[in-house]
């Protein structure tokens, strides 16, 4: 559910619909918050994050040609840990982000199919309708995933 109205805080992300797949529109007051919220959005598509403990930490550094390229690299790097190490992340601290470089820490734990409420996997981060934009103090990113 999307919360709206003057007394509701802006949600970190909203779900975007597409015939075959699913996407998100993420928001942030800063570029760092935007990248963190986009990651939260991607993992929220895959699982209910409330039940995900933060016992594991991975340091992530990626480079990209521009903000869009950086977004694809960042989210794809997180999918790498999901596939290779079965890690489900639920919190992200973006320590540094520029036009072409991002350094962050991701916190989560190994998937436990008994305990976690899992949805469906994200295969890939697409460039379809991909957008990273700034409107005054609002940073906004639109990302579609291949499901």
């Amino acid at each position, binding site marked *: 559910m999307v919360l709206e109205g003057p007394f509701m805080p802006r949600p970190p992300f909203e*779900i975007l*619909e*597409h*015939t*075959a*797949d*699913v996407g998100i529109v993420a928001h942030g007051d800063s570029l760092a918050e935007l990248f963190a919220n986009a990651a939260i959005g991607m993992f929220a598509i*895959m*699982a209910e994050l409330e039940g995900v403990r933060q016992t594991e930490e991975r340091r992530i550094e990626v480079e990209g040609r521009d903000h869009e*390229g950086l977004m*694809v690299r960042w989210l*794809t790097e997180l*999918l*790498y840990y*999901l*596939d*290779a190490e*079965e890690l*489900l992340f639920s919190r992200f601290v973006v320590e540094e982000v520029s036009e072409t470089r991002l350094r962050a820490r991701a916190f989560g734990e*190994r*998937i436990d*199919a008994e305990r976690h*409420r*899992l*949805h*469906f*996997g994200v*295969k*890939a*981060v*697409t*460039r*379809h309708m991909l957008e990273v934009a700034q409107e005054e103090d609002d940073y906004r990113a639109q990302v*579609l995933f*291949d*499901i």
Partner: protein
Amino acid sequence: MAVKWRETLEKIDDQRWLLPKEYKPGMRVPGLVFASEKMLGVIGQDQALEQVANVAFLPGIVNYSMAMPDIHWGYGFPIGGVAAMRVEDGVISPGGVGFDINCGTRVMRTSLREDEVRPHLKELVNQIFRDIPAGIGGSGLVKVSMKEIDEVMVQGVGWALEQGYAWPEDVDAVEGGGALKGANTDKVSKRAKQRGAPQLGTLGSGNHFLEIQVIDEVYDSEKAETMGIDGPGQVMVFIHCGSRGLGHQTCQDYLEVMEEAASKYKIQLPDKQLACAPIGSKEGQDYLGAMTAAANFAFCNRQLIAHWTRQAFQRVLGRDAREELGMHLVYDVAHNIAKIEQHRVNGKEMTVCVHRKGATRAFPPGHPDVPRRYQQTGQPVLVPGDMARYSYICAGTEQAMSETWGSSCHGAGRVQSRHAAKRMLKGVDVARRLAQRGIYVRAQNRGLLAEEASEAYKDVAEVVDVLDEAGIAGKVARMRPIGVIKG
């Protein structure tokens, strides 16, 4: 911008529609859409037909940018798109293959009748659900090292045979013998291999599935018999999955390579996602080698899944999978792939790179690449529907060879987004609804089932009928599911 597609498309006959070259400046060839008039309404609702026009921009494209009746909106290429590019001056595009390289289907027969399986159905489905991880996480029963991953990517089903996960006769019932030539494992990134290694022998999630099905109608009994189909009531197994994280990462890696290549080779594109490189260029050859390697991984993945399915049947029914249950492979075909093939164009031999993005190969009787056992019938074409209705087996035709680069449709195609389906089925227990129809379903998350319900998909019967009537793929048999495993 809403395009009035019915006015833009020119009707050729009841199954064929021409998208004229003049529709969009830059199109090198017209578009050719296979659909009934009724289906056009749904197809025209999203950007799929615009994508058919965009693919026609690609250098070296021959004849048409084609769309099968199950076409829907994809990333750059439409899903359900077929396009062939001349090897001399054409391009290869990762978007024309997709993230799930060699996503495909495999069908096994059995000698079992429905009434023999019914009493054991739950146990059987549960056993398969335990042995073949589905959904997010969960690694396969077989552990492979990074060195073995390279062997898998070269040998495909041959690797499974060496390890005891295949029967010798399985090998030639797989497209390309389950090991396409030209795999170059050096061109697959370490990241891709690391993502794929734990996932060999897993289904994944989304629309991937494993179904126990029953033949409910036979349209061509001679061809059916050759394919090991005895008649209504026979139990079959239908598998749909691909190359897992290995393929997803390989596509992602090369989308970046191709974005640079497209500007380096000054290729004008209407959509960045069509990024591509000349087939003969270093970038093109690297991708072709890596994509082929990922495709072989997928063939092996489906082989291992078939193996554990045979084991499960054997264990639950207490009978030998080969000698007593006759669980032979009917066929295994890719539906996300690009291949270098020989075709005849205006009476002349031509080497082309055929992109099949959500489309299967459908080679005719007598083609040298069709296994000997199917020389009279044509290559089996496997068309999955949705989990409550039915799936089809068809056979490739000469018409497909001359008109669609020997290609056919790959499934039903979605009509509802996942959230729309969920909203529509709010409060409906889809698993229970299926149970009432005699279908037992297991999924990692039952809540997810609404998103994969029949309502979210086109009726695959309409898709198959268009191609049958157009002479592209002849109907052989129809199956309905009784046991479903979903990611």
